[in-house]
């Protein structure tokens, strides 16, 4: 520490001992700590600092209540899926004498009328192309909307928004007839095309917003560096769009995977049924097999949840950037 002697001793000036001459008014750089000094608090003070105020505490209570309401049905479903039917028939919340079993999962997977193994495979067959094609077509359509000037640009964009506002039930009849005529009814190709068509609208809107946020200078720099339009798209725009494309993939995947209405209308043959269609078929003849249905539901919903957890980091970045402007 600096010795505090003779605060105003101007005579020391030439000696070059700054700490002495300025009487401790200035600190040398070495004295600055790396981290903030820990305050000397008693444990009572520390506890008082941590306990929230009444107002804040009330907010916590409300938030936790809503979170519980949200998750309780899921817990019920999960409990039903891992316990024998006899234990859950009186309510899943009785947890005394609980037996954990994976029998329900086994039975759902190999179900006689609607095996989940087949239903999940079918759902993948439809979902994966419906997601990948929408991503590719979507970014290719969104880029011109974000960057180029062309005739009817605003009109076309407005049209996309307009069509998005139409409920699927309204146009299902038209789609049904069209698929019949093209011979695509009750085929995966037909269903995939319907999903692509419905997905493109919001994907183009979403990606356009994201692309607008990419600085124009980057493309101008690339133009000056000698890149062609296609090279700019492939080497600059696509890599920079990764977070938005991941968001699109996650949302579109969830949407297509969980879709019930479109498969219901456009898929007729039971062996081609997708998972959401297969679940009601597991009901059983004599009594409702709640455990098996619950296990099937958990398996069905697990796929988009796992995908979301894996890609969460990118997904959040993409969402924030696309919605920010």
């Amino acid at each position, binding site marked *: 520490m600096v010795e505090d002697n003779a605060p105003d001793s101007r005579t020391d000036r030439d000696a070059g001992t700054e700490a002495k001459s300025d009487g401790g008014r200035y600190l040398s750089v070495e004295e600055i700590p790396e981290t903030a000094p820990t305050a000397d608090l008693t444990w009572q003070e520390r506890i008082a600092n941590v306990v929230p105020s009444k107002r804040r505490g009330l907010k916590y209570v409300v938030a936790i209540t809503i979170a519980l309401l949200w998750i309780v049905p899921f817990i019920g479903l999960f409990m039903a899926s891992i316990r024998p039917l006899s234990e859950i028939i009186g309510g899943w919340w009785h947890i005394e004498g609980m037996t954990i079993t994976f029998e329900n999962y086994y039975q759902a997977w190999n179900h006689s009328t609607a095996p989940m193994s087949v239903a999940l495979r079918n759902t993948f067959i439809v979902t994966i192309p419906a997601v990948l094609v929408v991503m590719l077509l979507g970014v290719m359509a969104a880029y011109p909307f974000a960057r180029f000037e062309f005739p009817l640009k605003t009109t076309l964009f407005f049209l996309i928004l307009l069509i998005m506002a139409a409920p699927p039930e309204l146009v299902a009849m038209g789609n049904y007839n069209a698929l019949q005529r093209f011979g695509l009814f009750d085929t995966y190709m037909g269903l995939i095309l319907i999903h692509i068509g419905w997905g493109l609208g919001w994907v183009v809107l979403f990606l356009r917003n994201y692309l607008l946020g990419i600085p124009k200078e980057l493309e101008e*720099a690339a*133009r*000056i*560096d000698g*890149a062609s339009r296609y090279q700019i798209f492939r080497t600059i725009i696509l890599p*920079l769009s990764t977070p938005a494309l991941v968001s699109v993939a996650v949302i579109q995947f969830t949407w297509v995977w969980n879709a019930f209405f479109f498969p219901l209308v456009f898929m007729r043959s039971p062996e081609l049924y997708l998972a959401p269609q297969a679940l009601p078929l597991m009901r059983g003849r004599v009594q409702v097999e709640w455990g098996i249905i619950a296990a099937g539901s958990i398996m069905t919903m697990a796929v988009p949840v796992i995908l979301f957890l894996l890609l969460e980091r990118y997904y959040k970045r993409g969402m924030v950037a696309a919605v920010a402007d």
Partner: protein
Amino acid sequence: MGSFDVISHCMTSVSMKDVSKYFDGGNTVANYRLNLDVADGEFLVMLGPSGCGKTTALRLIAGLEQPSDGAIYFGDERVNSRSPSDRNVAMVFQNYALYPHLTVAENIGYPLKVRGIPPDDRDRKVEEITELLHIEDQVDKKPGALSGGQRQRVALARAIVREPSVFLLDEPLSNLDAKLRQEMRIELKRLQNELDITTIYVTHNQEEAMSMADTVVVMNQGTIQQIAPPQELYKRPRTAWVARFIGSPPMNLFQGTRHNGSIDLGEAGTVELDGVMDADEAVVETANQDDASAASVLANSAQGDVAVGIRPEDLALSATQPSSGNVIEGTVDTIEPMGEYILVNISVNDQIVNAKVSEWTVSTDERVYLTFDDDDAYLYDDNGELVG
């Protein structure tokens, strides 16, 4: 041997002939009838306030914008319809425009990659350039992990790596702090001397312009006010607007009316016109035309509005009224001690006049007298043109 050793510095002169640029279907005039010649290897700086069209002019040369009118030539070739890459220009943007998803090495190598240069040559070239700009330790980092100065160097490296024929810089130093700006200024100048590339540099910072330029182009409201080397620009501003723009603080202009050989500055006093005219004729030996017009002003000695310009450093300050010479009277408004000099702001006829003095001799609200030599005065007519 890589293909790069074969390419010599293919320098190019750039010229603009009556180039105009309109936006919004003609509602906005960004540039109007620019005429400009940039010689091989010249360092030209476009200087002007924000919105004066200097960046648009640069983008026209780059090929990022098409001129609405007029022609741009690189050497003898008209390049109006050529793409930026065909023009072989390189550009450094104000915000650097580095590709955030690529590493420093990939950023610098990008222009070579899209031109199909083989990876080995590319790597060697990137290595050379990063050494030249002292960023060889940063090559594996992403731009986001670099400081402002390092980003600037990467942007420069990316621009010069393919040895462009014209090098364009759009306010490249404006995002750096003052100390770094000074360093980069020196480095840029050195780099330009070494590489000898025709360079066009846009800035609103006159210190940058004066210190680096071979030639300064002063722009205002989309058009060129003056093209001159830095010293000439300072010594002989062509218009009153340029006079007020160049210098820190800029030249003081006193509005007055001519009365048979003298200029009446209102309450502040009177300045003998003869002295100012004669003196400037002596100082600017080469300006024959101006002599002629000065003579005509003298001959045409009817009344009229003129402006007398004096630089702050040419004004002397005294508390007592001097007996002879050019004297302007005013009241001290504020005093700014700047360290190397003291800036005194004096109120003259409701106008603030700056004077740079070395000694603190006056105090606020004091009545003072400003004197100056005939040699140091400039005279502008009512069109703002320099007459003497």
